[in-house]
């Protein structure tokens, strides 16, 4: 884990409120599901913002984020050539090495981007990956999943594209050995319940407000069946059966 200042290679709006940020990065490997704490300000904002790795290349990292508040709006103003600070890679990530057989990745909203990097790593280790991607309206990042996924199922809330409704309607966990999910809590709970019913291993990537991002402040602790866990350090990925939803 390092704290570095890095150069912005690109920062583009891809839908109404979704942006893709590409930064120079020559450090060690990034695991599936890991994230970075980002900041593009000095102390105007107090805290850094956790954003998952969307894609990792040899010399660059990609993030995909939705502008929801002050921090992400400031990030949206960044220009190519500018600088940003990164702390990471943070968190445990998905245990790709242990995952065998067929995998479904199930994402919703800005839970989708981290599943792209995950799909790639799984694909590279020879795992078959299907993607189930649920969007509010306009899909994004679909082409980024294509190289790594066998099938891609898309849903939008009002049927703008793909299935109209929730992406969980399309999922049949029994077709998979492992299901990996990231997105709104209600979605992940639903996925976890479906997996539990069919006795399929399910990993969830949680979101929680964070201060330090590295396990020092206990600002992101949650209660699990194995005691209190820090989402930033012990997570963000947890096996669904450990969670106490």
């Amino acid at each position, binding site marked *: 884990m*390092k*704290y570095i200042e890095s150069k912005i290679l690109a920062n583009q709006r891809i839908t109404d409120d979704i942006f893709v940020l590409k930064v120079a990065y020559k450090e060690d490997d990034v695991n599936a599901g890991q994230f970075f704490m980002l900041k593009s300000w000095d*102390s105007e904002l*107090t*805290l*850094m913002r956790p954003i998952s790795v969307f894609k990792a290349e040899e010399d660059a990292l990609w993030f995909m984020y939705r502008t929801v508040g002050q921090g992400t709006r400031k990030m949206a103003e960044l220009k190519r050539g500018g600088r940003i600070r990164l702390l990471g890679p943070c968190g445990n990530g998905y245990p790709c090495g242990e995952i065998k057989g067929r995998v479904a990745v199930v994402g919703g909203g800005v839970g989708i981007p981290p599943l792209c990097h995950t799909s790639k790593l799984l694909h590279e280790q020879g795992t078959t990956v299907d993607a189930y991607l649920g969007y509010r309206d306009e899909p994004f990042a679909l082409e980024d999943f294509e190289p790594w996924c066998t099938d891609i199922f898309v849903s939008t809330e009002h049927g703008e594209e793909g299935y109209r409704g929730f992406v969980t309607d399309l999922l049949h966990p029994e077709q998979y050995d492992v299901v990996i999910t990231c997105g709104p809590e209600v979605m992940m709970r639903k996925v976890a319940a479906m997996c539990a019913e069919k006795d399929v291993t399910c990993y969830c990537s949680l979101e929680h407000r964070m201060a330090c991002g590295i396990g020092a*402040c*206990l*600002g992101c*602790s949650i209660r699990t069946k194995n005691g209190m866990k820090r989402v930033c350090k012990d997570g963000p990925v947890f096996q669904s059966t450990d969670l106490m939803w």
Partner: protein
Amino acid sequence: MDKIVNLSVEVAGVPFKNPLIAASGTFGFGEEYNELYDVGCLGGISSKGLTLHPKDGNDGIRVWETASGMMNSVGLQNPGVEAFVESGIAGMRRFGNVLIANMGGHSMEDYTTGASLLSDADIDMLELNISCPNVKSGGMAFGIKAEVAREVVSEVRKVCRKPLIVKLSPNAENIVEMALACEAAGADALSLVNTFQAMAIDLHKRKPVFNNVYAGLSGAAIKPIALRMVHSVCKQVHIPVIGIGGIYTAEDVLEFVMAGAAAVQIGTVNFNNPLAGRDILDALVELCQREGIADINEVRGIC
């Protein structure tokens, strides 16, 4: 050639190589930040707040950003004094700087039993937190009224065989009276301030952000108030005072020292810049050189 600056200070007989201490609750037991830089460069580290028994802390949202600050409601999640003594201290020791055990409590017995256990352990100083506003019962109460604080400090003093720092709450009814009461009760040093009791509302949900409704405010926002409190306490007590509250820069450090602080703690800034400890230290040396300060002890209390 750059002039050499002496930054070493002494607090209650304990030598610190520099006045920068990581503040309790923001730095864990030092381990995580040590992955980013050698935290042994700091003067000392105050441990995550301990309680006699392990605690899970509060449910719900625990941290929330505010204008130039943040609120927290961690609720003293910690492994308990015993686990700290058995497996926490060794890790902190290896940094080679001053090891301060920060301890809170819910009852007089918790405080005295904890202090007694820690006195037998390999710590350099005990920081008694009579101020954490996050625990529903106890906690808060000790730090509000001077008479109550006097009692708990007196009792702890009897069993404590380490230099005793008492950490004051800015929510105290009268910070100077509180300081004088703690001094009279036998504190070797004071540290102030802890977080300010504050509130955040989630407009859309139409309810308080924190399950406990109120939570503690820290960060740059509170610095001017913290500086005033440190200044007014330093003018009245004869024991050393560790300044805390919104210290983000070397300039802030020097201001607190000028207000009378023997040393300072940095908390929230660690989240803004995970290398803050090291960066502020480097900047402090340069700042002293620029300002013609050969020894930081020269400017203590000049304001």
